């Protein structure tokens, strides 16, 4: 390991990610990922594993490609015109970009929570049961109600909304809406949950609730979370990945990233020298 002071703040061409980016028990493996928006490259040669049942945080300055990277994991980038993904992304050894893979199935297995709470303009019930309905996970109303209660309980929302299940989800507070979106995502029992700055539109109390929730969820799900708050990354994640200008600089156990960053750019970022 080179000493931090010997490195420049310039990124060398052909930079190699430092730290522990690979895992013995990976849920998802990504190798040599490049992402382009039309001609513009947003992700450069990123390789990383996501371990089963871990919470991995993605941090980095604005525009460094965290969202883009996250969205390659459930192929949401397919919906962006001109976006092209190169490299291998596998979940449990299965190539997610294989031509015969159905994105509908993939997105049932890899759920996503967005930055801005985006419940459907329908009732709370319909929001949560939408996924199970379209994927045919439950046939009877009783089954659906069971999923509804279970998901809302897991999302810590049940007590607050159990009397108003048929009222619009958009009538909830911002934090409640975001938890509703989480309930909606876990209603289809995904294996991985992607969260893109899930707390950026929320106040500290709502944020605390969601962070608590993430910790609980990590017992059953693998979670990849993008965040702008280093405290949040420190609180909820097991590993932290630092992105810079589309390159993956460093991946290490969270504690280490925030106490002894291995790369000078990481250190500069977490000490607030840019970002």
């Amino acid at each position, binding site marked *: 390991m080179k000493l931090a002071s010997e490195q420049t703040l310039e990124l060398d061409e052909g930079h190699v990610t430092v730290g522990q980016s690979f895992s013995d028990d990976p849920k998802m493996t990504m190798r040599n990922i490049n992402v382009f928006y039309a001609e513009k490259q947003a992700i450069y040669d990123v390789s990383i594993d996501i371990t089963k049942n871990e919470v991995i945080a993605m941090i980095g300055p604005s525009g460094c490609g965290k969202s883009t990277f996250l969205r390659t994991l459930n192929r*949401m980038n397919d919906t962006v015109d001109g976006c092209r993904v190169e490299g291998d992304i596998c979940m449990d050894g299965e190539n997610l970009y294989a031509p015969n893979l159905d994105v*509908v199935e993939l997105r049932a297995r890899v759920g996503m929570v*967005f930055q801005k709470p*985006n419940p459907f303009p329908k009732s709370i019930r319909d929001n949560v049961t939408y*996924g199970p309905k379209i994927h045919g996970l439950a046939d009877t109303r009783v089954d659906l109600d069971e999923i509804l209660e279970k998901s809302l309980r897991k999302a810590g929302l049940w007590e607050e909304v159990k009397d108003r299940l048929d009222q619009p989800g958009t009538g909830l507070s911002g934090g409640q809406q975001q938890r509703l979106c989480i309930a909606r995502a876990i209603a289809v029992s995904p294996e991985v949950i992607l969260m893109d700055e899930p707390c950026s539109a929320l106040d500290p109390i709502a944020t605390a609730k969601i962070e608590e929730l993430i910790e609980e969820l990590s017992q059953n799900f693998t979670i990849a979370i993008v965040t702008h708050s280093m405290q949040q990354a420190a609180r909820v994640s097991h590993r932290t990945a630092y992105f810079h200008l589309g390159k993956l600089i460093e991946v290490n156990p969270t504690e280490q990233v925030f106490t002894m960053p291995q790369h000078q750019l990481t250190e500069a970022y977490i000490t607030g020298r840019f970002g």
Partner: protein
Amino acid sequence: MNNRSDTLSKIQHSLTRRNRAEARFRWYGRCAIFIGLLAVAVLFFDIISKGHGAFRATYIKLDIHYDPELIGINNLADNEQLSAGNWQALSKTALRNKFPDVSGRQDKRRLSKLLSNGAGFDLKDHLLANPQLLGKKESVWVLADDDIDTYFKSWLDGDAYDARMTAKQVQWIAQLHQEDLIALKFNSNLFSRGDSREPEQAGIRGAVMGSFLTLIMTLMLSFPIGVSAAIYLEEFAPKNRWTDFIEVNINNLAAVPSIIFGLLGLAIFINFFHVPRSVPIVGGLVLTLMTLPTIIITSRAAIKSVPPSIREAALGMGASKYQMVLHHVLPLALPGMLTGAIIGMAQALGETAPLLMIGMVAFIVDIPNGFSDPATVLPVQIFLWADSPERAFIEKTSAAIMVLLSFLIIMNTSAVWLRKRLERRW
């Protein structure tokens, strides 16, 4: 310090200017709205003052004797007898009995001219509906001729128009009026009959039915086609030169003069596909061509206004694109689409030019009952009546315009109401 008060005074100075500009701008707006409202008021005043008379018609009360011998029948069930019967004799005889001292061929003809030449058939229909009247006498209000109608109405208004009246006729009317045997009554013919050469017998029922059938046809075709096209272009089509080209051309199409669509319809539907002329089917096809661009453009705008976050949420849940559109985009876009469709329909309802090209301008007496019956539409009826020489058609024209305008107002109001109703901005 000096610098600071300097800035403040500059701001204050510019503030008065800005306030004045704003006040002026508000006045421009008020003037514009006033001019618009004034134009509408003048239009309505003109049409209503010309057309209100058409809702009442002149009737003359006669003692009719349903004499089988006079008509020349003995059996009301025999259709041959009925059609050969001399029904006009009923009203003519009654009129002559009323004015027994009228003599001379000329005067007798003038006298019978007081009544509409359809009066006999009205009496026939009345008798057939009430067969027990055969051989009996009854007082009946009989429809007057249009010249009498025009004269009588203008005479009641104090500005008698007697250019088409003889002195004798004027005298007879005065006598009838004295005995309370001539009066204005609600003109039910206007709403129950088709077109006629005789103004007093002409109604807008045929044109209203024609418009209705044509609009149904147009809506059934243009709404599904327009909405599908809009959905495809917005949600599924790749964004490339071709779709840009299509977009530009749809916008062009919306600006093409409607008569061109009429020519197109004539060439394609009638000359090539041999759809019969003058029928609501071909009218609907042509108006579909015309309203499609409007519906596509408004539907696309409605689809575009659905927030992208909803789409992402649906796709993120694993909905297919089709499910995303059907479950989330369409319900949110529907109010806008319906508004567009109703506005398109209102446009189509008022459209005349393209229909002239496909024969919907023909003189059609029978009321159309199906999509393949020859028909005309309200605006064309207005055009036809406005073109007729008979003075009585002037008020008819205005009355038809009033009916057309009320349909338009109803449609536009329902568009607003529907949008308010369906728009759930949760």
